[in-house]
């Protein structure tokens, strides 16, 4: 006599599929940036290349939610990183490690050490990083479940996501030396493989007039006028100046 397992009713079978907690495989990016990503965050084990005129700020902002939640952020080869901006963009300084200068020969070893240990590894690749080394690092990232954030458009390995800052516009300069750089509007596009094949775009404040990262309404109210100099006699709205991405 053979025993057969009775078939599960369809509605139960659906409920019984193993669930992997979303929080376990995605590094959260916070509510403002989440709409840019198909998985509402950075999928563990992936490589993300960030490029454009505000790449460093965007990359730092991507890590802030995870940093606040307890993740560590390591930066390797980032010789020019501005520590003040990391603070302002929301990274928890106690969980940030920076290796600004590293010889090309030990670069991959150091990156590998951090990939094994922390959630977010930001890297500035040394010149002439070989594609095979980049691929091997990518494989290690996949195995360890970290997220590798390459701060350059020319990451030689395959990147799962490409975050591109397409437009930059600064607010706050009032002409003739008046005012100051105060707020920045960005258009950020995220594209890549699979689900992300169709690029998602969003207009952001980074930082906004209050110093925070914020979503910007799709159609700017009145003032955004790329390429022209702002005029001082517009007191209500900070004048805008655009920079091509």
């Amino acid at each position, binding site marked *: 006599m053979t025993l057969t397992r009775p078939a599960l009713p369809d509605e139960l079978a659906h409920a019984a599929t193993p669930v992997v907690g979303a929080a376990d495989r995605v590094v959260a990016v916070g509510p403002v940036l989440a709409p840019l990503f198909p998985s509402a965050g950075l999928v563990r084990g992936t490589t993300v290349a960030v490029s454009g*005129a*505000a*790449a*460093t*700020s965007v990359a*730092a902002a991507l890590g802030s939610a995870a940093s606040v939640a*307890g993740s*560590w952020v*390591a930066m390797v080869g980032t*010789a*020019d*990183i*501005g*520590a*003040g*901006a*990391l*603070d*302002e*963009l929301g990274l928890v*300084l*106690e*969980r*940030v*490690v*920076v*290796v*600004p*200068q*590293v*010889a090309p020969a*030990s670069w991959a*070893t*150091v990156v590998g*050490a*951090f990939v*094994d*240990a*922390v*959630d977010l590894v930001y890297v500035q690749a040394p010149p002439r990083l070989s594609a095979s080394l980049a691929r091997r690092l990518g494989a290690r990232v996949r195995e360890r479940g970290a997220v590798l954030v390459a701060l350059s458009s020319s990451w030689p390995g395959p990147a799962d996501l490409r975050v591109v800052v397409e437009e*930059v516009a*600064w607010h*706050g*300069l009032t*002409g*003739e*030396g*008046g*005012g*100051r*750089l*105060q707020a*920045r509007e960005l258009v950020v596009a995220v594209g890549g493989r699979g689900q992300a094949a169709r690029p998602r775009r969003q207009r952001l404040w980074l*930082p906004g007039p209050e*110093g925070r990262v914020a979503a910007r309404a799709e159609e700017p109210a009145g003032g955004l006028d790329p390429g022209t*100099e*702002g005029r001082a006699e517009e007191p209500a709205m900070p004048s805008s*100046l655009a*920079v*091509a991405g």
Partner: protein
Amino acid sequence: MIERTLVLWWPRWPIVAATRADPTLDRVADPVVVVQAEVVVAVSPVAAAAGVVEGQRRRTAQQRCPGVRVVAADPALDARAFEPVAAAVAELCPRVEVLAPGTVALATRGPSRYFGGDQALATRLRQVAGAVGSVDSPEGPTDGPRVGIADGLFTALVAARAGAVVPAGAAARFLAPLPIASLALDPALGDQRGRPLADVLGRLGLRTLGDLAALDPADVVGRFGIDGVRAHRLAQGLGGASVVARTPPVDLVVQAELDPPAEQVEAVAFLARALAVELDDRLAASGLACTRVSIEAETEHGESRARLWRHEGALDPTALAERTRWQLDGWLRGDSTAAPTGGITMVRLVPDEVVADHGRQLGFWGERSAADQRAARAVARAQGLLGPDAVLVPRRRGGRAPGEQVVLVPAADELEPGSSPTPGPRRRAPATSGSGSPAPWPGQVPRPAPAAVHAGVVRVEVVDDRGEAVTVSGRGEISGPPARVSVAGGAWAEVRGWAGPWPAYERWWDPPQRRRVARIQVLTDDAARLLLVEGGRWRVEATYD
């Protein structure tokens, strides 16, 4: 309950090992010193008579005793030479622990009864060890091993210096008249912490262990913290065991088999390193640190050798691998009667005593989650690869507003408790002038902070609409609105907007480094930059990337 402990200690063991390795040296007749990092660590009797003492600089020792023979310290040689002695002791008593080359400890409960009392056991071991250790030359009565028996390891170590058997319960009385410097003998405090602590206590007028024992424990902990409490307990003859050691579960054992059998120590040492790392990972996963480990090896002919090693500061992979190498080196290259007849086929590391791991030397990031511990290990790894100053952490350093005074400081400084709260000259402030001097962050330029602060000097030319170089006067007035800039000799870019200048008189309190500078923000089609002018020359200090 303090375990009654026997310590066999061979005075000047590095001298014994060195003179045995080099037949031209005579340990009794020649003045010999063993030197590590230019500091004398062991002195032969003749050199000691000339006024050479441990801890002296090599140069001083050579002045005191001009004919002295200087030998470089070699812990591997010491350990290898000591292995037959440890083996001889282990033949008579079970569970012999090697604390360091030249020193073994064992619990006396069983052996003492077997040999007819502590005194008989001490005499027996001294004879056996002395016979093994001195096969090549006659031993003076003062130059052989000494045995001490007392309650607890620390008291036994002190007793071994005197060659004394301290009756049970008499530890405090035995220790009371001894100098406070004896604290450095404690393996947990060690030379690094025990000696400075003893120095401070001595300067406070506590010259003997008895003086320290008489203090109120609350006062000691208040002033000297955890090390003070340990020293206080030791001085009272209570033993230092403030942590509960326990026998570990068997699944922590790591072992590896060698096929083909290894005849060379190097081959085994390589494997031992990997084993040590694996054991460390397993211990870390259980939140444990190992203070005593049994290193076991077997040969193809079934010979085996197991030895217990103790290290109060917890055995890290390097220490474990080193001890494995020492033990096997001593066995394989030992004298022919004890050496194995075949190659080594198996090495096993058995943690014998473990304690809860409180983070060891890395415990500075406050409360530590698993992620913090992993990160701390990666930091240590990167420091190992690149040097301690290459790994930086951002820290707030005072400042006018949040975010304006964040600087990168070496993680090593942060790792050391009691380090100066201000960053040293290695600080990577947001900008460094051409001379490389650190500059305070420009508090005058308001938020947001630029995301890229250039470590190197990036020159830039700034001209007004007539093509003349823009300057900033001593009063902070700009000569004309900047119209075009050329970064690092590149093409001219139109200035789309600018702000400033923000003049600053930096480090005015420090004449060699003070400087008068001014900054402007300049927006071009490709980027927004913070430019700095000093002495009429402009450079890009930072980019709002």
